[in-house]
């Protein structure tokens, strides 16, 4: 798996080196990426796409062969790549009606004058073919002005989920910006879709960021809740009642192993949150009598209690630096969000508006110093709000969707997920960080809740 931190460092570092990089522009790149094994994110991108100004043209993928399998893969690539790049919320797009006016082009030699004519500044050409059960997909990204290829990639892999080629291509195209793409990221969530009849069991699932490709993680037919991704995307911390008591487990999801982190310490342990460096885990536990915030090694070693006020302290979330923890406490009489350092010191209250502010999620991008949380506003329902840490200004993201709860940021910090509903009808939603577009995910049957957006 790719390391998110590495990748964003690479691209932001490049911003300052843009001039030096211009020299490389002359040589179009064609590197072969074979899924699922990924090529390291090098050579570095050769062009920085400025968000907001670029108008992308993404014409239909051209099958290299006329067979149905190749056409099928191509249809998926076109549809998913457009959706992925639109979701990034950074670019404008040439409408399909205008693109269809352009004569069929030779993918090897697009007529850039045509594309300039419809206002495109970036042209994404895709081709695909299926041979012997394996799909090969080529993606070229051209600057319409210069005609030069900013990026050229060839992907190959199984044909059973062609969406993954488009997701990978979208994330690769995003390396041309200073932002990290979201298309390969996944969301973990809780569902009762496989509940044992007569028992209110819940299991943990993961799904692609767009709601497709759901997969079940836990199979213990108990109550499993509150999933939390490790930063490398290979593990999920979660709470399971498999021993009758809420305890925290860590599942290596690609190996199918699960480790007990909190052991038989008595009391409840829940709300796990793994630190940005993946080495520590914060959680809430009543093992010392009161509900407090604890921090341990990610293997459960050396648990330390950080709060001890006698109030209910829950829902820890790490700052992007890993040096602070935000959490919920009712020490003032109502649940409010507080921030402290990882020694449990320098505690300060962050939310002041409203009488119930809970379930904080710290934006993992250092670019945005803000915390999303669940707020009860006028009218009694719950909604998602975001507080700016410096100014304490609050913006409300949701309204009139029943209750919306449990926000969790995408690794890029530019989007977030949460669950909306009431009673037994809950679904996962995704939104941009300003809440301008809120989409309910087709995450499948059942009551779907407690989403956690992972790498």
């Amino acid at each position, binding site marked *: 798996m790719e390391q998110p931190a590495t990748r964003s460092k690479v691209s932001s570092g490049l911003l300052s080196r843009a001039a030096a990089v211009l020299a490389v522009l002359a040589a179009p790149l064609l590197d072969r990426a074979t899924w699922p094994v990924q090529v390291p994110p090098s050579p570095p991108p050769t062009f920085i796409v400025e968000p907001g100004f670029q108008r992308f043209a993404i014409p239909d993928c051209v099958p290299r062969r006329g067979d149905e399998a190749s056409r099928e893969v191509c249809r998926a690539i076109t549809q998913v790549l457009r959706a992925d790049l639109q979701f990034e919320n950074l670019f404008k797009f040439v409408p399909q009606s205008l693109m269809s006016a352009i004569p069929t082009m030779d993918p090897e030699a697009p007529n850039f004058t045509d594309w300039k004519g419809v206002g495109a500044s970036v042209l994404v050409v895709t081709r695909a073919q299926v041979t012997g059960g394996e799909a090969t997909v080529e993606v070229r990204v051209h600057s319409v002005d210069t005609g030069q290829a900013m990026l050229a990639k060839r992907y190959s892999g199984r044909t059973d989920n062609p969406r993954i080629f488009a997701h990978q291509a979208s994330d690769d195209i995003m390396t041309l910006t200073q932002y990290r793409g979201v298309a390969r990221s996944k969301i973990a969530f809780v569902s009762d879709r496989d509940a044992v009849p007569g028992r209110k069991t819940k299991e943990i699932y993961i799904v692609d960021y767009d709601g497709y490709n759901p997969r079940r993680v836990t199979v213990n037919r108990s109550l499993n809740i509150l999933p939390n991704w490790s930063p490398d995307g290979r593990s999920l911390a979660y709470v399971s009642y498999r021993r009758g008591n809420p305890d925290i487990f860590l599942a290596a999801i690609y190996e199918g192993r699960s480790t007990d982190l909190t052991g038989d310490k008595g009391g*409840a342990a*829940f709300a796990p949150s793994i630190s940005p460096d993946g080495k520590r885990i914060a959680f809430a536990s009543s093992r010392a009598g009161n509900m407090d915030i604890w921090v341990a090694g990610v293997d459960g070693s050396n648990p330390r209690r950080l709060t001890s006020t006698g109030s209910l302290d829950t829902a820890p979330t790490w700052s992007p630096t890993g040096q602070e923890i935000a959490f919920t406490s009712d020490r003032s009489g109502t649940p409010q969000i507080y921030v402290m350092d990882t020694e449990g010191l320098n505690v300060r209250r962050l939310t002041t508006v409203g009488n119930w502010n809970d379930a904080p999620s710290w934006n993992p991008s250092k670019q945005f110093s803000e915390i999303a949380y669940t707020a009860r506003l006028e009218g009694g329902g719950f909604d998602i709000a975001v507080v700016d840490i410096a100014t304490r200004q609050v913006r409300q993201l949701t309204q009139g969707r029943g209750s919306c709860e449990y926000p969790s940021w995408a690794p890029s910090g530019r989007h977030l997920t949460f669950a909306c509903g009431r009673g037994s009808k809950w679904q996962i939603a995704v939104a941009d960080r300003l809440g301008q577009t809120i989409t309910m995910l087709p995450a499948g049957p059942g009551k779907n809740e407690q989403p956690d957006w992972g790498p």
Partner: protein
Amino acid sequence: MFRRLNVAGLVLVLAASLAAGCGGKKRPPAVATGAGAESGRTLPSEVPQPVETGPDVRAVDTEGARGEDFTMSDPETGEGGPLEDVRFEYDSAALTDQARSTLEKHALWLQNHRDAKVLVEGHCDERGTVEYNLALGEKRARAARDYLASLGVASDRLRSVSYGKERPLDSGSNESAWARNRRAHFAVSR
């Protein structure tokens, strides 16, 4: 013939007293239910009165006090059971007067059913976050558990767990559903 019957009767009585077993004598007579209790109750009429009875015979000739065949909670789900739920106010883990009097009845019942163990489950209504309700449910379960302990129920017979808002009794979204869901439930097992 008479003598033989008498012996058989004595054996029956002895067997019944043995079956009553440990602790049976210390217990106040409990409400007898189930098959064992019924056979115990019919014993006296089947025992012909001997000509000379001693106090020891009378001593074993007590009510069949094996009344432990109580209804238990579903072992899988913990639902149902002999002890009614205790309800809470919104966003509160404080025991109301009503809750206390219910718990006092439960304590009495537990004194009469010494085999019974209780898992006190704290539950919440759907309003509020998952995490907060887990903490609140824990507080509710502990409040009910601690009150039972203060009434003399041995702490090794009591455990508590919070389910927060994860296992509502009523999946509705209205005041009456919420009121039913803000509860301590008592999963009884042996």
